[in-house]
């Protein structure tokens, strides 16, 4: 029996569930303690001992059904419907989930799909024929090629530092083309985003907490100090200080939703939406040739609905060519005056202006109002001055320009930004220390001539992957 269990555990591990040897031992012990009473009971036992997360339970059920179906036919007392189930499972491996809810999983958590339990073989055949519509028939691959050419990638060999074959965003782009025009997020994508955000929160939280305790260096909180030190016979061993009130950092985000960068900006919006309540006070705008604020909608609408609305062009017209100059003018006219506080400013876009007026002087005015300016672009450094791309001009107004291609990149950039913002609000002593540390780090890399490099003379801009993290 131990062998069966270890093989079952191996099968579970293959499906991505983490199970330690200790848990395997528990399972064996549990099976020995409770007498084996049929399939349902042993499944319960295995689930209790091996699975430690709700999200893993559906996977467990699937693996359990697949794994133990092989042994079902040898049991003499197996009933006929069960055997038929097994046969169907053997024929169509991908339909195991159809049978799953027929037996005893009524108590299973998670979204239950209500299915007609009477499924005839004809229905199955029909379902199968549905799956045969191959995504390759559509013209998805062609578009992908174009995208890559557009990114200026076709001519150059892949650089080892950027693994863009495993690059999620590119993969997403491929996917979205093969399904026709898919704009909403799948539950998996949302879960992945939740995952990225929760990891980020975890990293941030520790630093935040340390800064918070340091920020407590306010006045003495007399009442609390007395209360706390009552046990020490009023000798103030522990001093409680008043906490200073602090506002949430403000952020203004401009996202390009034109076709060329739409997917990146969608993820940006989703990321900010997820962060909005926890850490930040975000004002979000989207633009193409026109500019519109979507802060309220982000807060009140389900994300997928909002994405659809954006994609139908109801908020800004998507058929126009994007023009950064126009957008900046509009921003100055309508919004610049009523920006509160000194927000950090993030612009996401490829800076391809379609040969319109640059209007880069607006950025100078925004700069005066903003605490910090960050530009995120999906394009590589070497294409920044090619064609209609004005990245070099716009970039010279920003504190920082980052190349962002994947969700992970995005989360790292936002995390850095949050750190900077929080560090800015830290106690003067902390701020000084942080600044010194940063200066020491930056000393090895002189970034002052960064935007002039490669543009004065005809030489290609020098790119060293090592230096990238210092920008």
């Amino acid at each position, binding site marked *: 029996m131990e062998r069966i269990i270890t093989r079952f555990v191996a099968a579970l591990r293959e499906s991505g569930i983490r199970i330690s040897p200790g848990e395997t031992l528990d399972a064996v012990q*549990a099976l020995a303690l409770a007498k084996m009473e049929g399939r349902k009971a042993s499944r319960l036992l295995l689930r209790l001992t091996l699975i430690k997360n709700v999200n893993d339970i559906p996977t467990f059920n699937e693996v359990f059904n697949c794994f133990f179906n092989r042994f079902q036919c040898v049991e003499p007392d197996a009933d006929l419907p069960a055997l038929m189930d097994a046969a169907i499972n053997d024929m169509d491996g991908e339909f195991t989930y159809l049978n799953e809810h027929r037996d005893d999983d009524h108590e299973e958590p998670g979204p239950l799909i209500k299915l007609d339990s009477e499924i005839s073989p004809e229905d199955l055949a029909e379902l199968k024929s549905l799956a045969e519509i191959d995504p390759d028939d559509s013209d998805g691959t062609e578009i992908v090629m174009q995208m890559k050419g557009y990114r200026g990638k076709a001519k150059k060999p892949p650089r080892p530092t950027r693994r863009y074959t495993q690059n999620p965003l590119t993969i997403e782009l491929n996917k979205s083309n093969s399904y026709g025009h898919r704009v909403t997020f799948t539950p998996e994508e949302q879960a992945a985003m939740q995952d990225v955000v929760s990891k980020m929160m975890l990293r941030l939280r520790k630093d935040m907490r340390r800064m918070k305790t340091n920020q407590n260096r306010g006045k003495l909180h007399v009442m609390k100090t007395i209360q706390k030190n009552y046990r020490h*016979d009023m000798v103030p061993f522990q001093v409680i200080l008043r906490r200073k009130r602090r506002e949430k950092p403000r952020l203004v985000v401009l996202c390009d939703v034109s076709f060329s960068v739409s997917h990146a900006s969608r993820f940006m919006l989703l990321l900010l939406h997820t962060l909005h309540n926890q850490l930040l006070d975000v004002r979000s705008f989207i633009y193409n040739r026109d500019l519109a604020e979507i802060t309220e909608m982000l807060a009140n609408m389900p994300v997928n609905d909002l994405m659809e609305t954006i994609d139908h062009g109801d908020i800004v017209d998507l058929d126009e060519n994007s023009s950064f100059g126009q957008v900046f003018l509009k921003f100055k006219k309508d919004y610049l005056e009523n920006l509160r506080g000194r927000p950090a400013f993030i612009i996401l876009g490829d800076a391809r202006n379609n040969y319109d007026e640059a209007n880069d002087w607006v950025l100078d005015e925004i700069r005066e109002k903003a605490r910090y300016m960050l530009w995120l672009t999906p394009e590589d450094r070497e294409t920044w001055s090619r064609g209609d791309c004005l990245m070099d001009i716009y970039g010279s107004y920003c504190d920082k320009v980052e190349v962002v291609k994947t969700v992970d990149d995005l989360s790292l950039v936002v995390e850095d930004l949050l750190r900077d913002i929080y560090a800015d609000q830290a106690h003067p002593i902390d701020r000084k220390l942080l600044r010194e540390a940063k200066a020491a780090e930056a000393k090895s890399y002189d970034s002052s001539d960064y935007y002039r490099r490669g543009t004065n003379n005809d030489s290609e801009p020098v790119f060293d992957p090592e230096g990238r993290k210092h920008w």
Partner: protein
Amino acid sequence: MITQQAVSDFLNAGGYIADEAIATAVFLAIRMEKPILIEGPPGVGKTGLAKALSAALDFPLVRLQCYEGIDEGKALYDWEYGKQLLYTQLLRTQLDNYISVSADLREAVDRLSAEESLFFSKNFLVQRPILRSFLSEKRSLLLIDEIDRSDDEFEALLLECLSDFQISIPELGVIEAKRKPLVILTSNGTRMISDALRRRCLYLYIGYPELEREVAIVRVRFPELCEDLARQMVEFLRKARELNLRKPPSISETLDWAHVLTILKATELTPEVVASTVGVISKHQTDLQKVTELAEQELAS
């Protein structure tokens, strides 16, 4: 010798209708002496299971409610500073005599430090819930409620207690549990519990119960409510749970509602009855509206 069936039976006798998964988990926890980690939406009877178990098994219930910032001083043990100070004050004359015998300062300090253990003994130890349940003469039931509210550090602190049933106190050494308590941890899943803690526990997910079980629960708690009404009520609530409410009604709401209906002596569920008692089942303003609309649709005939 205890069996799964016995567990299920004595829980039923105590008014807690357990399904097979719950009974098996409890059985294994008792036999394997491992903690159970229970997750599930609020109000499905996670804490209720612990209370029912403690009553049925006659284990004294020791409850530790977690909150943000809970630490070992609140959960494991603490030194009673006040008492220590009081004793040193009271014993001052004795101490003077005791030390005055010594020839020089060094000897006095030596003599005093030889008696140090006197002030860091069990006399001055405040037993907090975990230590209390470990030192209990009778096997106890330790309920660590809403572990997801505590910090990561506290979770790490629990690891030693839960895997080895011992507590290390620097001044006293390692204290082992006299009788290993039955430990139940509950979580509402507002935060991911670390894998290290999960690994040390049996994992039980309690979701919303099936129709029959929920009807049985209502019938056990409120026998005066007639069977038809109970069934109608539960069926209605099951539909309400699919409405995508902000706070879907769980078993505790079912029971509250049943209680209200018995007080009102209702015999049948009508839209009017639902409208007048809707505050019991939904706790958000937007939900109220959805539930009343559902009642109009479903119960109009």
